């Protein structure tokens, strides 16, 4: 019982405790790091697929050019479509009176009622109303849109802003219809006002469910404080992008009667949004980025409203042709357009000006020096630190603030502090995927960054649950991607599997996956989620397709047809939406056939016309022989066999 014995027991005990603590800490840090890595992998999957989809835009764009070449020959009685695609101009005030007066607000409407001229009370009113999940009546939507267009028309291509020691400015990035994030920003940073300036750097709409509400709050705030609320155009402020990425759908769903009118006016309003903002003559704020040929002096001068859409590249009508146009399979010559439509060349931007705007809206900064085509997105370029220095110096600027890319922390600084990305939609891909952020700037002071993350629950779920959600979501869409390229993938696998064993080495499998899907992903780390391996470490490459298949709308339909329609469903959706100029949701069998023929030949798909015909006829048709194409496309959804199993497991845990 002497001091000696008890202290040595104590020593041994505390040594044991120390070792035990070390073991637990070591294990935990390993586990936690692997969680973070899994989170990062999931993010990479989301991002690659997002950009690969954007790449599809380019192909679609080529298709539209092609279609216009040939469509008018096949369907000469439909100049309306061509006119629609080439943007006829709305006459201003006359139409305004017409439209707005046609739309009555019934007494039974208990949503927010705006009063023109708008004041700050209207901003409050909207915010409160939207918090209550109310929908703003189409009458007010249209009024706001018309008024916004009228005021925007008076603004230059680049808004000039000055800060002072007593007046900071707040810069927000992409919101993408995430209303909760906007509310959170206003909660933390205050509503816009004469003493609280904001710049919203594009991509207000698409993907999220409240694009309309965000747009209304931003436009109303702009109308109340036109000198303190600045809006820049993003690549999603584009009616073609809205067709694919959800805003059009949202509008037609929320405004069943007047949605079409709203869409028409919105198209125009987008084109009048300024291209960018310049703060204190030294900071350039634009949505995407720059290229080595960016010429701000030129951009100050262009007629920005002629930039209709990224998918509508200017088509030259003389000998100086785009090579794309020459791809007509029929070998038909291009007929000059002035005769056939109301379109005149002066309604489009010249090609080099159009390209300048595309660069501003679509480019991404990268660490590699130089300027390269942005192959992930299919538009704009990748610009290196040398390009940034060159362009900033050329126009006597100090910094570039841009958005366009989702960052895990909501913001990112690169190119030696000269380029800042700010992204304001938290949980963009999935709950827990990323934080949102905004920047506060003032004169010569260093920018301050504020981060946040919207969460539905009152307290954050444990990290491992959030990561699991993200990961399952990411793997799911990756598997769907694989399914949409199933035939190509199997061909690639079989090419390497000479012994027809159904197995490949990890290296062979990873190679085929990367090459066929065109996605730069960590295949080795992802493989346990996608395929089974045998005891020798070889991949059973068909195992992915065993628990997932596309639900056939009609039993007899061939699987290649199904796969093709599934793969191109979003392109088809856009094309149908464009043809369906009265937004009825219906197109005639004839239009469908003509459409399919063109699509078939341009995309080099080997599906017989009669197969598609048969399929369309077997779907529920309206009595007048027209197709509800949304129903048609909805039918091609993917069934994940193990889904039900996973859901019940989750309940058990």
């Amino acid at each position, binding site marked *: 019982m002497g001091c000696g014995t008890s202290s040595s027991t104590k020593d041994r005990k505390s040594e044991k405790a120390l070792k035990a603590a070390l073991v637990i800490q*070591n*294990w935990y*840090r390993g586990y936690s*790091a692997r969680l973070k*890595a899994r989170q990062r992998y999931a993010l990479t999957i989301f991002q690659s697929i997002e950009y690969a989809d954007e790449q599809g835009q380019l192909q679609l764009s080529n298709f539209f050019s092609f279609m216009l070449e040939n469509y008018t020959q096949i369907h000469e009685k439909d100049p309306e479509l061509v006119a629609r695609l080439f943007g006829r101009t709305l006459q201003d005030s006359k139409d305004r009176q017409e439209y707005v007066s046609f739309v009555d607000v019934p007494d039974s409407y208990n949503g927010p009622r705006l009063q023109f001229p708008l004041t700050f009370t209207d901003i409050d009113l909207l915010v409160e109303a939207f918090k209550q999940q109310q929908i703003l009546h189409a009458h007010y939507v249209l009024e706001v849109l018309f008024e916004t267009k009228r005021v925007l028309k008076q603004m230059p291509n680049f808004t000039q802003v000055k800060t002072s020691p007593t007046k900071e400015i707040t810069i927000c990035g992409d919101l993408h219809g995430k209303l909760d994030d906007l509310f959170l920003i206003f909660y933390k940073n205050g509503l816009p006002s004469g003493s609280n300036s904001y710049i919203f750097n594009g991509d207000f709409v698409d993907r999220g469910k409240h694009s309309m509400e965000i747009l209304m709050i931003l436009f109303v705030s702009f109308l109340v404080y036109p000198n303190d609320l600045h809006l820049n155009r993003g690549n999603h402020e584009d009616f073609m992008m809205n067709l694919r990425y959800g805003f059009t759908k949202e509008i037609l769903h929320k405004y069943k009667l007047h949605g079409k009118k709203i869409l028409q006016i919105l198209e125009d309003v987008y084109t009048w949004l300024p291209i960018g903002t310049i703060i204190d003559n030294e900071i350039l704020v634009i949505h995407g980025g720059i290229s080595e040929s960016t010429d701000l002096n030129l951009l100050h001068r262009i007629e920005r409203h002629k930039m209709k859409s990224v998918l509508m590249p200017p088509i030259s009508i003389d000998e100086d042709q785009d090579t794309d146009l020459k791809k007509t399979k029929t070998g038909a010559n291009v007929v000059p357009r002035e005769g056939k439509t109301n379109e005149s060349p002066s309604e489009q931007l010249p090609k080099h000006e159009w390209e300048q705007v595309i660069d501003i809206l679509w480019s991404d*900064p990268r*660490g590699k020096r130089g300027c390269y085509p942005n192959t992930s997105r299919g538009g704009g370029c990748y610009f290196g630190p040398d390009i940034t220095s060159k362009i900033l110096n050329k126009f006597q600027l100090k910094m570039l603030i841009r958005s366009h890319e989702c960052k895990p922390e909501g913001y990112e600084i690169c190119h030696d502090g000269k380029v800042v990305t700010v992204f304001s939609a938290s949980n963009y891909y999935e709950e827990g995927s990323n934080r949102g952020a905004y920047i506060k700037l003032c004169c010569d002071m260093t920018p301050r960054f504020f981060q946040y993350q919207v969460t539905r629950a009152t307290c954050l779920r*444990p990290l491992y649950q959030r990561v699991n959600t993200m990961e399952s979501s990411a793997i799911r869409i990756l598997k769907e991607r694989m399914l949409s390229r199933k035939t190509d993938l199997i061909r690639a696998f079989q090419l390497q599997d000479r012994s027809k064993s159904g197995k490949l080495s990890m290296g062979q499998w990873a190679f085929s996956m990367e090459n066929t899907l065109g996605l730069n992903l960590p295949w080795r*780390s992802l493989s346990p989620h996608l395929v089974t391996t045998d005891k020798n470490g070889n991949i059973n490459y068909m195992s992915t397709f065993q628990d997932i298949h596309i639900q056939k709308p009609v039993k007899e339909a061939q699987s290649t047809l199904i796969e093709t329609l599934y793969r191109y469903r979003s392109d088809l959706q856009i094309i149908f939406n464009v043809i369906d100029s009265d937004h009825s949701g219906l197109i005639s069998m004839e239009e469908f056939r003509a459409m399919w023929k063109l699509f078939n030949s341009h995309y080099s798909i080997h599906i017989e016309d009669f197969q598609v015909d048969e399929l369309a006829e077997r779907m529920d048709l309206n009595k007048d022989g027209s197709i509800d194409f949304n129903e048609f496309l909805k039918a091609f959804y993917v069934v994940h066999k193990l889904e039900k199993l996973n859901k019940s497991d989750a309940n058990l845990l």
Partner: protein
Amino acid sequence: GSQSLVWLKSQKIGGETVETGPKICLPVDKRNTIWFIFRTVKSEDSEVCSRCYLSEDGLIFYCAALKVKELVVAEYHRKIKEAFEVFDHEANNTVDVREIGTIIRSLGCCPSEGELHDLIAEVEEEEPTGYIRYEKFLPVMTEVLLERRYRPIPEDTLLRAFEVLDSSKRGFLTREELIKYMTEEGEPFSQEEMEEMLSAAVDPESNSIHYKDYIAMMVVDES
């Protein structure tokens, strides 16, 4: 160093027992992979060098041993590259030094904080820039994987560690006890790490950590 590759078998050729080298040291479960690689190598590589021996059942030695190491190293390189690229945001073959720990651990290794510190010192520039270049990281990480350094903690060791801290053998630790041990002993947790662990480990009803259940849950999550 001591990271020699040990051949798993010796072969009898012409009555003599031949031992081959350089030697490959691989865990038993990888043995089948190696044999498979050998067979593949053999079918494509019809040339046999003078230091190669072919036994009756067609297994190769020496040259194959080298080739296998190449194959193994090549696969490791690709694995490391993939893991690195995910954190290389600017696509210029560098990652922030603060993410190196995550990358190393995502590759299946479990270094302690001290060991991690040493590794970082090995891969850093002479004048630390805050960034680690791929060219420096790759060879070091390849050695780590080849030598199978920093093996993860087996489940039962982890369980025993909790049991040591739970001296009265109740089957759980209180929140305060866990906090005390994790933030005061060993390589202490930061506040963020502590909160993160508590959020998943604490049973909200009893406000304590039932470590056996906790471990079981984490193991399921990782598999």
